[in-house]
């Protein structure tokens, strides 16, 4: 695109002069605000905006190529931006927007006679404006439903990325195009897509280099590299559009169950512990999965680098339990009282308590029922009571 433009400017010194003359000719009609075509669409051109735009130096016919003079055809050929912007046009054809109705370029770049550079704050594709631009379609619940998508715009706007962008005006905050690309937006089912499952760590990692490095050092990242299809990727824990601040209580509350989706047994046994009980009551300062296992660089207990490897347990538990000793860390954070083989003392203690409860309530339950029936009869004035007392 840049070369085309350069070539045009280089070879066509006369272009501005010619176009100015031409443009004046066109504008003699098209500067009329009420001018409409046969179908009733406005064909008005705002000269001031056109002159301030990125295409100011181009004559009308540079884009409207089918118009050679006046009178011009009632239906001039559609403008092909790809004549100059050939790379972008190629990308669009390959993208999910190829089939979108209407003019794919203008859907994002707006008024064709008022296109400004992307770095201009007024541009609909300026970083801070991208979510609103994409949201003009993808924030439409009707459209989302039709395409089988969620209303990603509202999810994004409430996310940590959306906040950073809209509240703080952070230009480095991820917008739609940071993850989905600009012209070549591909479906997440396309292996070439930046949002294809296995490409996501690299996509997120293009900003979040630290977590990406940690992730690939951990077991989840290694599994992904080894081709493990079940290995979790960023989005499995952080979700995609509504990415929340990890410090938020509501987010931390949900994440236990997220780990539990794969680690079902560990989750179930965790739920039996004091850590989980406390956690369920909304107390954040308790051991949750990541407090012991870390999050991005999770390592198996057999790895000496792992915080849950036997040699590191005292330090890991000691984060909260100051004074933790080797004896203290023989506590099982995932003990299963139903597992007789692995935890015999716990198993028998639990069984004993069950029997005790059963015994006490079996005995006294029956005792109470019999007592109630008997004394209810004994209190009846029929004389049964007297018999009962002194038979």
């Amino acid at each position, binding site marked *: 695109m840049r070369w085309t433009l350069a070539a045009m400017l280089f070879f066509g010194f006369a272009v501005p002069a010619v176009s100015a003359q031409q443009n004046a000719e066109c504008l003699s009609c098209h500067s009329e605000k009420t001018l409409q075509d046969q179908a009733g669409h406005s064909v008005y051109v705002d000269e001031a905006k056109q002159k301030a735009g990125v295409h100011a130096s181009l004559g009308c016919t540079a884009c409207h190529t089918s118009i050679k003079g006046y009178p011009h055809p009632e239906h001039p050929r559609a403008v092909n931006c790809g004549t100059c912007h050939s790379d972008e046009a190629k990308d669009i054809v390959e993208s999910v927007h190829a089939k979108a109705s209407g003019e794919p370029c203008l859907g994002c770049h707006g008024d064709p006679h008022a296109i400004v550079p992307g770095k201009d704050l007024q541009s609909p594709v300026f970083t801070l404006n991208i979510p609103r631009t994409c949201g003009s379609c993808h924030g439409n619940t009707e459209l989302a439903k039709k395409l089988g998508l969620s209303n990603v715009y509202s999810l994004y706007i409430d996310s940590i990325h959306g906040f950073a962008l809209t509240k703080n005006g952070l230009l480095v905050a991820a917008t739609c195009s940071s993850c989905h690309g600009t012209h070549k937006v591909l479906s997440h089912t396309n292996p070439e897509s930046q949002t294809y499952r296995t490409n996501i760590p690299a996509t997120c990692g293009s900003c979040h280099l630290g977590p990406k490095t940690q992730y690939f050092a951990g077991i989840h990242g290694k599994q992904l590299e080894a081709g493990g299809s079940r290995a979790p990727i960023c989005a499995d824990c952080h979700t995609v559009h509504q990415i929340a601040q990890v410090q938020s209580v509501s987010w931390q509350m949900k994440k236990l169950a997220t780990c539990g989706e794969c680690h079902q047994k560990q989750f179930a046994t965790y739920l039996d512990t004091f850590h989980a009980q406390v956690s369920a*009551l909304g107390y954040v300062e308790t051991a949750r999965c990541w407090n012991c296992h870390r999050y991005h660089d999770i390592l198996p207990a057999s790895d000496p680098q792992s915080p849950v490897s036997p040699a590191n347990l005292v330090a890991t538990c000691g984060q909260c339990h100051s004074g933790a000793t080797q004896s203290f860390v023989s506590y099982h954070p995932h003990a299963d009282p139903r597992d007789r083989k692995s935890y015999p003392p716990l198993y028998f203690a639990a069984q004993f308590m069950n029997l005790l409860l059963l015994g006490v309530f079996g005995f006294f339950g029956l005792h109470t029922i019999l007592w109630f029936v008997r004394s209810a009869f004994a209190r009846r004035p029929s004389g049964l009571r007297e018999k009962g007392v002194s*038979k």
Partner: protein
Amino acid sequence: MNAEARQSGLTDQNNQGVRFYVRFSLWQRYLHAVVIVTFMGLGLTGLPLRFSGSVWGTAFARVVGGFSAILFFHKFCAVLLTVAFLMHLGDIAYRGLLKRQKGIFWGPNSMVPQLKDLKDLYGHVRWFLWLGPRPKFDRFAYWEKFDYWAVFWGMAIIGISGYSMWFAPFFAKFIPGSWFNIALVIHGEEALLAVWFIFAIHFFNTHLRPDSFPMDLVMFTGMETEKELRERRPQLYQRLLEEGKLGLTTVAPPRWLKNFGRAVGWVIILAGFVLLWLTLTSFFRASGT
């Protein structure tokens, strides 16, 4: 009998004929009051933890100020109850060991189970089945002794397991950390045993059974009428009569105390029933899935 007793309770200020037997001293009633309050406190703050996945558990925790508040009240009540328990042990040791008071560790006035308790249980069950007469109970009936020892061992077991978890790093110097897994199971299940026993069995045995309905106020007033004593504990009545130690008084318990007892009693019983219902449904829902 009950109707009469209640009637006498309403009119005893003027009823010169009614005499009262002092069954519990002020000291014992104060201790029991501490047990009531701390037990309810411990139950209210502990059961949401035991059933932390339940809607009512999380809702309650949120209302009182989250887990930190719950834990504070739980520990506060635990310390109070521990003090009451130790005072009771001290009282027993002082009276039984130091002052050599007789009948504390054995005999009809003792809480220690006797052969008579086994016989009474047998006789009581026979009476339930219309097979024999009602046994003549002495000072403490076998179910009252069971109540006492259930609470006694309950406090010891729940207390030790609770303190071990409270001061886990310290206790880990003496016991392996894997015992804390067991401590939590025992603490939680023994607590369930305790609350269910109190809210279902103790409430029925003591207050709600037809002979005591709606409420036995003796733990508030300390006093039973002579008639109640004679009918409920014939052997004690007979024994005291023969020993000449009946020591009845005509001073009736004050009306405010009885009303206070009724009010407190009903609040506790209703709270207990709510907790009983919530915990039972959560328990069986959890074990059902």
